[in-house]
């Protein structure tokens, strides 16, 4: 079966090619079947390989195969090759599994859209690129996938390209991503050159891993920081998160697949894949953890004052991604991937549910105009409820296990710190609060919609509700693969991933800058007490329940309280509601700055200097010619004057010269 690992990315690629070749002549049904079947076959292949893995001992769970030699230059050999190990098989399963469900959902959701066929073409292309990203066995191929998903994100965000806001959102996503990719590329180059200076010219993961110890501390810190910049862009962390809320302009299945379950997790995957490099750079890990938890907190706070369903979910995604980065930042790579998986389930479900709600409410997005949908759309209601319980971290649901693992590692691991844990725990409470604010706002209370819309409220068709149900089931049981030892489980997922990641606490306080070593000292002091784990677990449950209760009180029992609160703290509310004016700040600083630089360069360099040089040369020559032309008067007598002048000069010369000679000789 190892020989067939290249089938996993092949099926979506085939789907893309067939659909784009025949899209004009084929029917909608054909396109939909080809697209969904392509992903389904990919999923089946992944499942087959996974089953094979389970039969093999832990150390043998790596399949690698090179299909073709892409670059063969001197000592560098970059193949087109695929690598399936524990990490990538989980990613493949998530991408193809959740991807398949979303494909099926889209058949119903995009049914009336004139761009139906184009949508599935782009979706298949996206899945192909994502699979390339997670199965590539070298940095270059991974980067191809990295850029490819960025491209598909742009195409799909701006899917309704006639809308200005959608086109702009697509552009914004691509450009902000590009900023991150710049850092990523610098990191790759630096890694390549650093290894090369030791004589190892390679970009393959296996070879990087075996030679990672050759890189010295300062270099690896810079490399990993640059790579993290790329992750910041792709996975929407501070300061490069601004594209994700705007990306909600795309169709809802796109938001679900790309901006919740798969593409935005590429950054986390990348860090997990190169964990041996990151573990060698504790300073970078600290930065990652800090950025992650700050992003989580920041994004959650914005979610408090938004009214657009998809925007709330977008900020929630940014926040949960922050949790994943917190996990990998404290060295808990397994916990990060675990949360990635459960997040794909419940966030994917939340977006699809939102799509279902929009479908019922004839396209309405504002939760102030919703309410009371509980009775009218039961399947959507229950699946959404399960997803909200999962994201809030209620025990029994998948999110609880993954989030709790992260919180514990943030507290306990050698790279962790109590403050990190505290902020993360508070954010978890905030998450519970705003998710249930959303939930109550949509489904409970009185229906605040217009009459016209109220009439049309209906449950979505089966092709949409069945994927919802499957995802809800996964949100419920998906976490059971990671039940920690404490509660009697075997923590299978961490053991599955362990050969790749090694023990969590590694290289604590080894090298780095003095600023962070104080943090380490504090962490060392109060760490590694496993008796605290049940206490912390209980604490996180309590925080979640408190969050839900507050949401219940504020939005169901006493709805006038939030309004009074907003009125009293109107300035704070204004700032939070406007997302802390970050977009406006970026616009002022970067966009207008670059426009002004461009205008300046246009004026001074292009028109002034270059055109001035060219036109100036021509003008000078023209003027010289005009002046010289006046010599030619056609008047012969003036020419004679010229001759006499010449004679005068020559005779003067001769007379003077010879007289001088005479006087010198005399």
């Amino acid at each position, binding site marked *: 079966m190892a020989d067939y690992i290249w089938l996993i990315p092949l099926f979506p690629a085939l789907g893309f090619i067939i659909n784009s070749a025949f899209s004009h002549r084929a029917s909608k049904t054909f396109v939909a079947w080809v697209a969904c079947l392509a992903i389904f076959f990919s999923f089946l292949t992944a499942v087959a390989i996974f089953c094979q893995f389970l039969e093999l001992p832990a150390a043998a769970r790596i399949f690698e195969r090179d299909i073709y030699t892409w670059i063969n230059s001197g000592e560098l050999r970059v193949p087109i090759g695929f690598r399936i190990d524990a990490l990538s098989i989980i990613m493949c399963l998530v991408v193809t599994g959740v991807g398949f469900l979303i494909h099926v959902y889209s058949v119903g959701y995009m049914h009336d859209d004139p761009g139906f066929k184009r949508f599935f073409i782009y979706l298949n292309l996206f899945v192909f690129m994502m699979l390339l990203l997670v199965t590539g066995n070298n940095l270059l191929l991974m980067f191809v996938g990295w850029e490819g998903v960025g491209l598909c994100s742009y195409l799909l965000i701006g899917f309704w390209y006639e809308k200005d806001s959608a086109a702009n959102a697509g552009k914004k996503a691509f450009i902000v991503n590009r900023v991150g990719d710049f850092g990523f590329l610098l990191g790759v180059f630096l890694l390549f050159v650093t290894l090369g200076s030791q004589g190892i010219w390679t970009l393959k993961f296996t070879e990087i891993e075996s030679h990672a110890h050759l890189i010295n501390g300062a270099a690896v810190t810079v490399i990993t920081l640059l790579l993290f910049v790329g992750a910041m862009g792709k996975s929407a962390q501070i300061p490069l998160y601004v594209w994700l809320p705007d990306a909600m302009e795309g169709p809802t299945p796109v938001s679900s697949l790309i901006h919740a379950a798969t593409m935005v997790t590429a950054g986390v995957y990348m860090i997990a894949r190169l964990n041996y490099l990151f573990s060698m750079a504790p300073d970078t890990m600290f930065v990652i953890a800090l950025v992650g938890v700050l992003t989580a907190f920041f994004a959650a706070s914005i979610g408090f004052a938004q009214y657009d369903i998809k925007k709330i979910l977008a900020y929630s995604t940014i926040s949960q991604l922050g949790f994943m980065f917190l996990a990998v930042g404290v060295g808990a790579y397994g916990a990060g991937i675990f949360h990635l998986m459960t997040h794909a389930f419940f966030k994917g479900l939340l977006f699809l549910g939102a799509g279902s709600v929009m479908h019922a409410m004839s396209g309405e997005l504002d939760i102030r105009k919703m309410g009371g949908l509980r009775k009218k759309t039961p399947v959507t209601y229950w699946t959404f409820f399960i997803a909200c319980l999962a994201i809030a971290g209620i025990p029994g649901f998948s999110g609880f296990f993954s989030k709790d693992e992260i919180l514990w590692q943030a507290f306990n691991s050698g790279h962790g710190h109590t403050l990190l844990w505290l902020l993360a725990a508070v954010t978890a409470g905030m998450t519970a609060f705003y998710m249930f604010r959303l939930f109550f706002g949509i489904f409970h209370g009185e229906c605040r919609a217009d009459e016209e819309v109220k009439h049309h409220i209906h449950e979505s068709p089966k092709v949409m509700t069945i994927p919802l149900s499957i995802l809800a089931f996964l949100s419920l049981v998906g976490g059971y693969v990671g039940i920690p030892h404490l509660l009697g489980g075997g923590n299978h997922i961490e053991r599955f991933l362990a050969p790749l990641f090694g023990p969590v606490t590694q290289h604590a306080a080894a090298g780095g800058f003095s600023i962070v070593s104080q943090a380490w000292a504090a962490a060392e002091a109060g760490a590694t007490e496993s008796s605290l784990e049940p206490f912390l677990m209980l604490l996180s449950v309590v925080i979640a329940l408190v969050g839900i209760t507050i949401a219940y009180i504020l939005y169901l029992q006493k709805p006038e309280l939030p309004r009074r609160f907003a009125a009293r703290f109107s300035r704070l509310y204004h700032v939070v509601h406007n997302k802390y004016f970050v977009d406006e700040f970026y616009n002022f600083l970067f966009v207008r700055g670059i426009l002004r630089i461009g205008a300046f360069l246009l004026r001074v360099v292009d028109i002034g200097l270059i055109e001035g040089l060219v036109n100036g040369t021509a003008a000078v020559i023209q003027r010289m010619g005009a002046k010289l*032309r006046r*010599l*030619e*008067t*056609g008047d*012969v*007598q003036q020419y*004679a004057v010229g001759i*006499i002048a010449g004679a005068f000069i020559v005779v003067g010369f001769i007379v003077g010269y010879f007289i001088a000679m005479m006087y010198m000789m005399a």
Partner: protein
Amino acid sequence: MFQDSTSFWCFALSGLLFAIGAIGTITRRNVIVIFMCIELMLNAVNLVFISAGSALSSMDGSIFVFFIMTVAAVEAAVGLAIFVMVFRLRETVNADEVNLLKG
């Protein structure tokens, strides 16, 4: 200082005649008068040659003058022929009005 006062006076006379001829060339407008002034300049040069030849007891001066005169004659013939043609076309004897080469 100077070898022979005769040479000096001859040179001075020649220079004067040349200058007069030059001023005449550039000042007069009638083409024929311009031509005569040019002949005057040639004569001034002839005088220089003869006087130098006399001062140096050499015949080279006279030989050179012989050739100058030959060339002057040819030049007169051809030049006046051209002038007649131009006059036929332009109906003018003014040097100012024959300025087709004006840039």
